[in-house]
C-alpha cells in the first residue's frame, strides 16, 4: 500500500497511521495548493456502534518546506476533541443526523487548526470546527454529501480546511504485490507464478470500499512559497515546495485505571508516523529500520539514501521475472548508485533533465513530496504523471488519481535511468509494467471540488445486501 500499515509499530496504532499524502495545485482554484493527509486506514464502513475517528491524543501535522533545508517553514497542526451529548445511550446517533449540530448525533468530534511559522511561532487559526459524522447509512444520514459540504470551513486567514471520513481513493493490488511481488497482468511470467498460471490475470483493488479519515487544507500559493510571490516561473527554485505529514503522541501516558482520575498525557510530542513520497518507508526502507524512519524528520533521511541508491525491489525484479529485466540485471551488476531514484525521491529532479521541468530543492537528501507550484493543473491528466508527459502529476507532487504504484514500479524497473545515463536502454517491460488498476477501480467518484476525495462508503450498503 502507499503507507497503510507500512511499519511494524504504527500498524498497531491505526489512529496515528498516515496512509496517503497528496499535494497538487488545485484544478478548480489554480492559485491554491491542496494538501491532503489520510489517516486511520482500511476502515470497514459497517463499524457501529463505535465508528472511526481521529485520536484526541494525537497531534496531526502537515509540513511545508519552502527553502530546501528539509525543515518546516510552515506547519499546519490539527488537534481533535471528542464530545458526548448523551451518556445514557450506547448509540452513535439516536435519530437522523441532518445537520452538524443535530441533537440526534451523540458522539461528535471537533478540531483546532494552528499554523506554525518558520520560527516555530504558533497561531491558532480556528477552534472547535466540527468534523462530519461517519457515514453510518441512509437512515441515519439522509444526505451525507450535503452534510460533509457543511464541514468544509473557510478560515479568515485564507485557508480552506476539512477533517473527516472519506472513501479511500488509493488503488493497489495488495494481495498480489505482497504475494512474492506478483503483478496479476504478468503473473504467468513470474518465477513462481508461471508454474501456477498460463494466462495474464486481472488486478484487484484491495483498498476498494474502505474508508479513511482525511485532513485537507487548501492554501493560497503565495502563502507556501519561499518569497511569498503570487507568480513564479517554473525554473525559479522558489516555485518548489516539499511536503510531508507526521503524527505524534505525548511521550508519557499514564492509565489511571479508575474513573475518579483522568488518564495523563504529558511530555514532548514524539513522532510516531511520517509520510512524504508514497511507498518510501513501505518499499525502500528495510523492515528493521521502518519504525526508526517513522520517528525521524526528513532532514535525517541521508542515512536511508543507500536503500534508495540500491533498492531491494530493483534487485528482485530480474529474479522474479526471469528474462524480462535483463538490462536492469546488468545495471544492478555494476553496483552503480541509482542517481535517478536519488533525485526523484530525495532531492527532486534538477532543471535540464526533463524539458520545461524541475522540482529540485537542493542538495539536502530528504523524503518529501516535491511540488513545482508554477506548473498549472493538467487539462487532461495522465495517471502516469511525469512518466506520461504530464508534468502536473507524480512525482511532481501527487494527485489523487495518479497511479503511484505503477509509476514507482516503472522507475525502479529502470524507466527513469536514462534521465541520468543516456547510454542505458531500459528493458521493454520497464515501460509496460503496471499493476493493472486505475482510479476507475475505486467504487466511488472523486469530487470536483475541495476536498476532492469521494464520499465515504456507508455502513448500510457496504457490504451490500444480496439482491432479492
Amino acid at each position, binding site marked *: 500500500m502507499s503507507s497503510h500499515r507500512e511499519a511494524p509499530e504504527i500498524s498497531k496504532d491505526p489512529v496515528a497511521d498516515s496512509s496517503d499524502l497528496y499535494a497538487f495545485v488545485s484544478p478548480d482554484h489554480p492559485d491554491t495548493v491542496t494538501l491532503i493527509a489520510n489517516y486511520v486506514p482500511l476502515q470497514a464502513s459497517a463499524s457501529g456502534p463505535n465508528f472511526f475517528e481521529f485520536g484526541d491524543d494525537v497531534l496531526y501535522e502537515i509540513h511545508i518546506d519552502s527553502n530546501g533545508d528539509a525543515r518546516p517553514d510552515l506547519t499546519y497542526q490539527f488537534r481533535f476533541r471528542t464530545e458526548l451529548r448523551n451518556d445514557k445511550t450506547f448509540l452513535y446517533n439516536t435519530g437522523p443526523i441532518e445537520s452538524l449540530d443535530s441533537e440526534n448525533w451523540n458522539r461528535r468530534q471537533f478540531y483546532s487548526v*494552528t499554523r506554525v511559522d518558520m520560527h516555530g511561532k504558533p497561531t491558532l487559526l480556528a477552534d472547535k470546527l466540527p468534523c462530519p459524522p461517519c457515514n453510518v447509512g441512509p437512515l441515519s444520514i439522509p444526505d451525507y454529501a450535503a452534510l460533509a459540504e457543511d464541514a468544509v470551513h473557510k478560515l479568515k486567514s485564507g485557508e480552506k480546511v476539512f477533517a473527516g471520513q472519506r472513501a479511500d481513493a488509493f488503488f493497489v493490488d495488495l494481495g498480489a504485490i505482497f504475494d512474492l511481488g506478483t503483478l496479476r497482468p504478468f503473473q504467468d511470467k513470474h518465477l513462481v507464478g508461471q508454474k501456477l498460471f498460463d494466462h495474464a490475470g486481472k488486478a484487484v483493488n484491495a483498498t476498494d470500499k474502505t474508508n479513511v479519515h482525511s485532513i485537507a487544507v487548501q492554501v493560497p500559493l503565495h502563502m507556501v512559497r519561499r518569497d511569498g510571490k503570487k507568480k513564479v516561473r517554473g525554473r525559479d527554485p522558489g516555485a518548489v515546495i516539499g511536503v510531508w505529514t507526521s503524527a505524534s503522541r505525548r511521550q*508519557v501516558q*499514564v492509565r489511571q485505571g479508575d474513573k475518579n*482520575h*483522568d488518564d*495523563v498525557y*504529558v*511530555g514532548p510530542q514524539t513522532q510516531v508516523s511520517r509520510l512524504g513520497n508514497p511507498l518510501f518507508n513501505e518499499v525502500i526502507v528495510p523492515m528493521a529500520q521502518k519504525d526508526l524512519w517513522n520517528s525521524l524528520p526528513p532532514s535525517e533521511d541521508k542515512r536511508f539514501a543507500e536503500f534508495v541508491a540500491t533498492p531491494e525491489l530493483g534487485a528482485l525484479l530480474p529474479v522474479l521475472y526471469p528474462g524480462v529485466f535483463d538490462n536492469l540485471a546488468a545495471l544492478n551488476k555494476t553496483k552503480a548508485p541509482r542517481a535517478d531514484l536519488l533525485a526523484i525521491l530525495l532531492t527532486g529532479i534538477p532543471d535540464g533533465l526533463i524539458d520545461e521541468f524541475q522540482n529540485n530543492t537542493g542538495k539536502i537528501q530528504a523524503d518529501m513530496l516535491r511540488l513545482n507550484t508554477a506548473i498549472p493543473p493538467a487539462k487532461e491528466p495522465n495517471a502516469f504523471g511525469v512518466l506520461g508527459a504530464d508534468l502536473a502529476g507524480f512525482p511532481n507532487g501527487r494527485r489523487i488519481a495518479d497511479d503511484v504504484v505503477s509509476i514507482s514500479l516503472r522507475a525502479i524497473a529502470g524507466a527513469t535511468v536514462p534521465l541520468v545515463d543516456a547510454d542505458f536502454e531500459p528493458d521493454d517491460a520497464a515501460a509496460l509494467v503496471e499493476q493493472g488498476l486505475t482510479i476507475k477501480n475505486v467504487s466511488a467518484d472523486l469530487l470536483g471540488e475541495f476536498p476532492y476525495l469521494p464520499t465515504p462508503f456507508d455502513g448500510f450498503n457496504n457490504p451490500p445486501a444480496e439482491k432479492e
Partner: protein
Amino acid sequence: MSRRRVLTAAATVGVGASVAGVAGLSLAGEGENKDDGQALVISLRDARKGTFDIFSGEQRVTFNDRKLAAHLLKAVRRG
C-alpha cells in the same frame, strides 16, 4: 516542583524507566503553560546515576539526584 502534587512514585532498580502517577488534567492542548494542578510524571531513567526525567505539559526536564533516587528505590523495596 513544590507547587505540584506528587501522589505516588515507583522506580525500578538499575538502568530503566519508571513512572510516578499524578492526579491531574487530561489532554492538554495548545497554549498550556500553567503550572498549578497540572499532571506531572517523574521517571527515574538511570538509578545508578540518579538521572530523573520530569514530564510536565509538553516539556521534559532532566536532573540528577542520587540521594533522591536511593530514597525512592528503598521505598519501592519496602513495597
